[in-house]
């Protein structure tokens, strides 16, 4: 089974988010970057599938050379080879377009992405990629069992689950649940050593116009301090929620 896992290189979940003084760009000073959590579930699933069916796991990132440690980490976790498309992402469309061009030249059985990245939260790349390739798309995927040229999948829906059948190849928007949290792998020393000699191929980007332009960033207004209510006077909370906040 040939599996492609698309990885986003994102600020660690505990990072403080700051922008450059002109508010036009994210300020990455002092920020630790990690594999996007939703993608990490997909990567682990891919490694499990390889163990079961044999095959090859390729990881891919669209970014400049600063994202290579993230790809090396994925190789240390167990991916076989990596591709970096040398392009600073401008919008979801330009990223999906770059990935689609790589997929067209390779016969992957499944392309696993995370349902959204925790930085720009657009949640568009996986579905755009599927549609550019005219492939089935399963979003919010928490179960994937291939059988021959078909697969049974489970996706999370409002207040429940949906089980689906799809032909392969297909594109998955994965998330927590695709594998258990406890199954996520931390690279060991041997993995880190072997990762150094695994192939990391850099491809030049294709010229494509982005469909949106970032103008500026701003941070939410800081909230007023918490109003405390005595634990013995819970009715005061009800009064505040009713009269002041007007939410009950």
């Amino acid at each position, binding site marked *: 089974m040939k599996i492609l896992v698309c990885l986003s290189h994102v600020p660690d979940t505990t990072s403080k988010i700051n922008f450059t003084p002109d508010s036009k760009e994210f300020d990455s000073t002092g920020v630790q970057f990690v594999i996007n959590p939703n993608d990490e579930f997909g990567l682990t699933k891919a490694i499990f599938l390889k163990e079961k069916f044999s095959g090859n796991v390729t990881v891919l990132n669209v970014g400049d050379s600063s994202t290579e440690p993230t790809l090396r980490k994925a190789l240390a976790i167990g991916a076989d080879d990596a591709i970096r498309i040398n392009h600073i992402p401008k919008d979801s469309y330009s990223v999906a377009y770059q990935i689609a061009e790589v997929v067209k030249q390779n016969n992957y059985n499944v392309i696993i992405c995370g*349902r959204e990245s925790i930085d720009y939260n657009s949640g568009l790349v996986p579905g755009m990629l599927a549609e550019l390739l005219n492939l089935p798309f399963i979003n919010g995927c928490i179960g994937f069992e291939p059988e021959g040229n078909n697969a049974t999948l489970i996706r999370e829906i409002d207040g429940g689950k*949906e089980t689906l059948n799809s032909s392969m190849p297909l594109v998955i928007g994965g998330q*927590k649940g695709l594998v258990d949290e406890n199954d996520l792998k931390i690279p060991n020393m041997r993995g880190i050593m072997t990762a150094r000699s695994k192939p990391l191929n850099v491809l030049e980007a294709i010229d494509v116009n982005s469909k949106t332009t970032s103008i500026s960033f701003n941070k939410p207004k800081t909230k007023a301090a918490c109003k405390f209510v005595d634990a013995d006077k819970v009715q005061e*909370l009800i009064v505040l929620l*009713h009269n002041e906040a007007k939410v009950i």
Partner: protein
Amino acid sequence: MSVLVFTETWNGKFKKSSYEAVAYASELAQLLNTSTTALVIGCDNCEDNLAKYGANKIISTNAKYNNHAFASIIEKITKEEDPSCIVLSQTVNGKSILPLLAIKTNASVISNVVELPSSTSPFIVKKKVFSNKAFENLQFNGDLKLIAIIPNSVGVRENPQSAKIQKIDISIDDKDYKTQSLNIDKAAGKVSLADAEIVVSAGRGLKGPENWKMIEDLADILGAATACSKPVSDVGWRPHSEHVGQTGIAISSDLYIAIGISGAIQHLAGVSSSKVMVAINIDAEAPFFKAADYGIIGDAFDVIPKLNQALKKFKN
């Protein structure tokens, strides 16, 4: 060049998020000096409801539930109506349909939108980024603009119009159904997290799954949905579908009550777009108190039964 809005239904009825999408679309149409056309698939004679929120024309059709097929239907209507903007709500299904539709219609798309455009020439909208920690203002480069709004972010506002209802048949090619739904497993009679105005959530402070009765009682009294923190879903006290936070479900309720949840940054990332937050925690140092609007420092096992009793009295 109207504004086209896709309205989702479940079991023949509209979701609240659909009314919100129509209200947003009609306010956008006013800014653009045009009219609002609503498209609904699978509505059981409930089209009229959309006029109340500002639809001038309602196109109603039927098709088997399938996100690929729904994207194809919206694409067909887009070709006929030639709108300048398409609006939809970023529900679970909306999130699946959106990127497919963007490619099919060659539209520019912005998701996670929380407000009307700040300017329509150039066309700039504000979206949430960095998991609720910031906003980004983005400009559309294309002519056809696709806007996906976060449910419960702009609110449902009435704007009654007299609307024409046009019922049509659309044939969909088999090849457009790229997946087959085998089974849908939904808890009946519960308020779904995505639609909930009030969410009652609890964490490890509850000490065990057997103690959730008082949380469910509180949710029942308030007509709220129940949710939980990540550690609670990880150990299996509550189903993963209740986990709110960065790797779970992101919500933007009107009122979020966090009981026995310390308030890790990953948890806050998924809930902090709620309009009002209440923290109840025995630990006065719990980080949630820094994010909350109202707080009670106290033992949940003492506070919640008292709160339930007082709320019952208040509701009567």
